[in-house]
């Protein structure tokens, strides 16, 4: 079984770094949650993080592609979201356990886009379209002003969170039908309505109310992100996110 584990990691990371077998063994352990606390992160740990980053990045990419209308399958998006959740848990357990898992990250993956995406992980992970309310929020109530400063938005995020959840139940299958199951992309829905906010706004308010647009995060500027994330983190991943942000700032 370990042999397989080794290979699995290997294929994912072959272009990144060649790795030794023993490292993979500890990595296996790590995956099972037996995170070893080491001051200088081991190679395995680094690889684990690398893989996590890669899977995470792909996950988000796929969800985004899904929303552009490439593939529309509830099964697929549920599986992707569950994978995101798993990564989230993994990150939280890392954040709670390990001292500074971000050091290797810094060295390995300077791609700030991925790191940025991490930060949305601390919000509840939901499927696109799961948050049925959003769809209605948009056309019905005007979105937050695009001129919202990131700071304001940051505080408003938490205040905004509950409403969509509560309004969700008010919308029936028909609404639903527009989400998950539809053969229609979100772009299409909003095409006729208002797309300006996505182009002009630094902070898409839609996203801040829920995770309907998981990947629209990439629209943010780094500055927004830096200000935003620390206050937005859940207790578990807070430490780690702080670290990531520090790295970003230094970058």
């Amino acid at each position: 079984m370990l042999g397989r584990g080794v290979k699995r990691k290997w294929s994912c990371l072959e272009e990144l770094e060649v790795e030794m077998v023993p490292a993979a063994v500890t990595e296996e352990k790590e995956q099972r949650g037996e995170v070893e606390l080491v001051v200088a992160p081991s190679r395995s740990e680094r690889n684990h993080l690398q893989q996590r980053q890669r899977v995470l990045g792909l996950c988000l990419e796929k969800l985004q592609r899904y929303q552009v209308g490439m593939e529309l399958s509830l099964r697929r998006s549920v599986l992707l979201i569950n994978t995101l959740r798993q990564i989230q848990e993994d990150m939280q357990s890392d954040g709670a356990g390990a001292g500074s898992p971000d050091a290797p990250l810094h060295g390995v993956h300077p791609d700030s886009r991925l790191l940025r995406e991490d930060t949305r992980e601390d919000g509840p992970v939901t499927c696109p379209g799961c948050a049925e309310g959003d769809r209605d929020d948009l056309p019905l109530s005007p979105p937050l002003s695009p001129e919202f400063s990131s700071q304001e938005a940051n505080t408003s995020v938490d205040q905004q969170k509950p409403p969509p959840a509560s309004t969700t139940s008010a919308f029936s299958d028909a609404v639903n039908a527009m989400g998950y199951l539809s053969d229609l992309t979100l772009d299409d829905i909003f095409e006729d309505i208002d797309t300006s906010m996505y182009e002009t706004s630094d902070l898409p308010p839609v996203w801040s109310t829920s995770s309907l647009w998981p990947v629209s995060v990439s629209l943010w500027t780094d500055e927004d992100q830096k200000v935003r994330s620390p206050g937005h983190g859940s207790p578990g991943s807070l430490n780690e996110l702080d670290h990531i942000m520090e790295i970003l700032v230094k970058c």
Partner: protein
Amino acid sequence: MLGRMEAAARMWHVGMTSSLHIRVLTLIVDAICPPPRRAALCDRAVGLCVQPELLNEAMAGVAGGNDFQWCFSQVKGAIDEDVAEADIISTVEFNYSGELLATGDKGGRVVIFQHEQESKNRPHLRGEYNVYSTFQSHEPEFDYLKSLEIEEKINKIRWLPQQNAAHFLLSTNDKTIKLWKISERDKRAEGYNLKDEDGRLRDPFRISSLRVPVLMPMDLMVEASPRRIFANAHTYHINSISVNSDHETYLSADDLRINLWHLEITDRSFNIVDIKPANMEELTEVITAAECHPNQCNVFVYSSSKGTIRLCDMRAAALCDRHSKFFEEPEDPSSRSFFSEIISSISDVKFSHSGRYMMTRDYLSVKVWDLNMENRPVETYQVHEYLRSKLCSLYENDCIFDKFECCWNGSDSAIMTGSYNNFFRMFDRNTRRDITLEASRESSKPRATLKPRKVSTGGKRKKDEISVDSLDFNKKILHTAWHPKDNVIAVAATNNLYIFQDKIN
């Protein structure tokens, strides 16, 4: 929006032309190998079989407890490298007698092949499947209320047991299920005097006598007519339909619900399973397949994206929210990865003909469950374990979401399922032997024996082995069907349908 509709219309148009295409090409394939030439090729194939090497390989054959060889019988569909999306086969299904074989494609068409009896000058061949009927079952639609496009792709075909001269089948796309009647007509009534030659009714006062019409023979005509349309009952995409053993009802499953229908009634159905959470944010699991028990009409199963199977008894309650049995194998913690859940998602579930077992297919394996044992499968067969090291790239290129189907042979002694590189796998349940075969044009000479294929799994690659890295992941065999009585199999490889049979020596 207009652009989309235009595109849909274009697709439809392409679909129509390529339907002709298939028929023409079938003719071409038949024309390429006219009977005498075929016989010659057969002789050559017989010559091949004498090679000792092949005889040894034949021992790896799988079916019915006896070893034998699989040989090529037919291939249907275009030879072109360019594959039109609409021509990709999306489902394959034999009817109960095996006389008819239906395929559905992404263009919404159903093509039915009929088995033709062996002729005297070709005693080695068990007869071939030739096109019997082709019709457009579903067409692309646009739901204006929800502003969404509905693909015409045929997701599933299920035959109804034959009860009279006509054949019936159910076909479904994402939203609408249709009941089709396929009937033959080779006679027509002539000599009516109630109508004139143009078909207009004549003035009854001018008809002085009644003439009894006579039935005159005519060229055989196969008609496919839609008899029932079961629409507007699924909010999500339909993944399965299954005709019940009472022959009166059937179930249809989408991602979150299962409905029970009466074959005669189109305006209502009963929702028997609903796993949609009140708050969709809590959704973590979807229904991936469902099937009725082959002889207990109150029992059905459905599989989920979490790798579990639930067996429900419709006698227990109208809404089978609570399962009677829950089949789940505990996860092996040592093989846990980020992809664990994705690869454990079940893509197909099939009861054995006997009804004692069921088989489930997940991404890397196929499992046989005894209905009397819920905690683990009685048999597990690795389909392509070598891909475990490739999961990351398979995830990247979306292959990890492919939905492979699986099927039983007529006697439940062997199972078959597909893989990549146009490979498909068979497992003999008695001998526990397995074989990998390939559906390819290269070996598509009549009666050519299929050479077992091997994928090298680490270490040195032996001669005749193919390395994991050179597998073509665009060539996948998702749909296969096994003749209910004979060792004849139908394998859908993208836009081609291969028919193989065992060799009668």
